[in-house]
């Protein structure tokens, strides 16, 4: 607890948890996971400092979702371990909040915005016990944080794309999780929604939470994330977007399955990977 609190305030440097006095939000050591002769993840080690917005990129089948599952404690690794704030991942059930892919949610489900946020508290009570007033308050507060309070009684299908994402962020916040895992939040949304979702991610990050986001679109990756993880079974790179989005590195990982990125900002940018502030 102590360590977590101190680490939250010192999280502005994108230095990937290298500081010795800081407990990493996520610490993966030599993780190998397999479902057969071909490993889904091979000897992956990485450390993510609290308060970062991290993108996970890599071609299809590169182990991105296996990495998420490992962080959730869903898969048993063949070797290696995962620690969240210094605690073993399978001990830390519920400490990591999973935000589902938009396509996998049944938006017609008879459930309101308020009820989805409240689901974040379900893990806190024994299953036969009622939800407490305090749980309700926490859920309400989470909705407030993502500016969705006024939609509390709205069925979730009657929201815009950005609002739908915010509801699930509220659920994750209500869960009290310091770490949020998002599976392709930008898949299949229009530009305005993409912007709206990014806003939510950034506000959540500013509140000190750590976000790990599976992402597909390399052209926006440098703009959206503090740091990137480039996976293909092995960890190919983990660093600032400028370090990771290197044309040679990408062509090695994607094996030419990628069209030319004439305009990858990383290619033309400074070594320290500072993000350009241009916005037109």
């Amino acid at each position, binding site marked *: 607890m102590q360590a977590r609190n101190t680490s939250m305030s010192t999280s502005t440097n994108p230095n990937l948890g290298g500081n010795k006095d800081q407990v990493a939000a996520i610490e993966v050591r030599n993780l190998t996971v397999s479902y057969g002769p071909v490993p889904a993840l091979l000897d992956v080690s990485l450390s993510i400092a609290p308060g970062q917005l991290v993108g996970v990129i890599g071609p299809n089948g590169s182990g991105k979702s296996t990495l998420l599952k490992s962080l*959730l*404690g*869903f898969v048993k690794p063949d070797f290696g371990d995962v620690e969240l704030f210094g605690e073993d991942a399978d001990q830390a*059930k*519920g400490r*990591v*909040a*999973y935000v*589902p892919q938009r396509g*996998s*949610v*049944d938006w017609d*489900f*008879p*459930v*309101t915005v308020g*009820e989805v946020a409240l*689901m974040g508290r*379900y*893990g806190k009570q024994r*299953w*036969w016990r009622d*939800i407490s007033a305090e749980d309700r308050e926490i859920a309400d507060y989470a909705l407030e944080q993502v500016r969705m309070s006024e939609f509390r009684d709205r*069925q979730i299908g009657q929201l815009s794309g950005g609002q739908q994402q915010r509801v699930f962020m509220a*659920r994750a916040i209500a*869960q009290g999780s310091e770490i949020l895992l998002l599976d392709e939040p930008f898949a299949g949304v229009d*530009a305005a929604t993409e912007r709206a979702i990014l806003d939510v991610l950034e506000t959540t990050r500013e509140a000190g939470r750590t976000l790990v986001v599976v992402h597909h679109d390399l052209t926006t990756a440098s703009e959206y994330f503090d740091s990137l993880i480039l996976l293909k079974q092995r960890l190919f790179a983990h660093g600032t977007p400028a370090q990771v989005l290197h044309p040679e590195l990408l062509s090695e990982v994607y094996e030419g399955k990628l069209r030319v990125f004439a305009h990858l900002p990383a290619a033309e940018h400074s070594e320290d990977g500072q993000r350009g502030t*241009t*916005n*037109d």
Partner: protein
Amino acid sequence: MVSGVQPMTSTYQWLVEVHQANPYLIKALLTGLLVTTVCSVIGCYIVLRRTSFLADALSHSMLAGVVGGYLVMKILFNQEAHALGMLVGSIASGIFTVAIIGYVSRKSRVKDDAVIGVMYTGIFALGGVLASRFSEYVHVDVYHFVIGSILGVSDSDLKMMALVTIVVLTFVILAFRQLQLISFDRVMAASIGVNVVLIDYMLTTCTAMVVVTGVQVVGIIQVVGLLIAPGATAYLLCDRLKNMIWVSILFGWSGFLIGYYLSEQLNVSPGGMIVVVSTGQFLLVFLVAPRYGLLAGLQRRWRAIPQQLIEDILGVILRAENEQATAAGIAQRIECRVERIRKAVESLRRQEWLQVDDDIISLTDEGRQHARRLLRAHRLWESYLQHLGVAEEELHDRAHVLEHVHDEDTVDYLDDKLGHPLMDPHGAEIPEDFVHLVPGEEVRVAILREGHRGEVVRVLTANTGGLELGMQLVVGPREDDSQMWVVTVMDQNSMQGVVRLNHAQADSVIVKLQPSA
């Protein structure tokens, strides 16, 4: 049959009398209400989890379980028609069927609908084969199971139903949140430590128990209707799971009571009539449900005013003299019925884009903003089409179609590609880029118009025509057929010099816009 009852008689007396006169009737009523209650509750989960076909499989597999349970009790304990034995047998065969369907569809490439079809018909047929092979031991009336008979319910059946009702309702009440979560988001459920597989199997067990009771009323073939029709009906009306369950129970009861009553009146099979009424209820609600109903959808579509019409109306008013028009005038311009225009104008007035004074329609500030945005899109599209060599006489009509594509990025793209023109091909002014031209915004010099002023805050390339960070500028009229931007560099309000920029240079200088003098 109950016609002799006086209206003044108390309900209790009525019950007693009816019971004395027709003991089977009260039992049938009680049976029906218990069964429809649990069916309607579990049915909601089946509807939401899209497992109707699986429930169908479960109901058919029951026959094998009944025969199996009968045989075991008969052979091992010499008990004839042991109700509990048959119940346990049916539940076991139900769970076995669900489990094997799950296993086979996981392990084979055959998709689960086909696996369900193969497995349940097989198990159902096995039940039939067993029943006829051991017909000397097993006195099971297969027809009774297929069609159901609410009037043939025994006291022990009724006790069993009461037990099932208690067990199922207790489970649903206690595990409400878990059931909601695994139906809605299994991954999240698992991530907070819910035992997804256990809850799944408990729900399957409940479904099997409920199906066993339902079969008594309507039979194997029709039980799925009893199970899911009320839930499906409620689903069309409710936005919360709890409400859906309550409403589902009400539809279950009404389907049963009305169906049962009609079956007495028409002297037909009660099971069939109950399912017919339940389906009828569903269709009726599908038609008239306030939000998710067919009529509501049609009405919404009928009431909706096409975007294109709205944009045409705004455009006509903006171009009209004094920016004023009448409904009739607009109708004439865009060749549309006056009533349609009036309806659209009314909705735009409510949106506060238009104001209507007597018959005169004019734009509000917000409406004008939208209209100008459209006008800008229209004139840019016209310029673009001319640029591509489209014939003069086609320009307007084709731009009229294209102007409805007017999102910010598209318009910005056209503007930039055409070199930020000031006039359209007919010599009309193209409205400025008012989306970006707001004091305080940082914008490229290229989109500025005469009179704009600002401070250079960033340069994107070295090719700036001599402009530097921190310079104050005022934009003058363009030169060279609008291809050359002319800016005056100011210092403490005194002129320092004039700089001429081409498109590329004007694009690479960013100024922070100040309010125009």
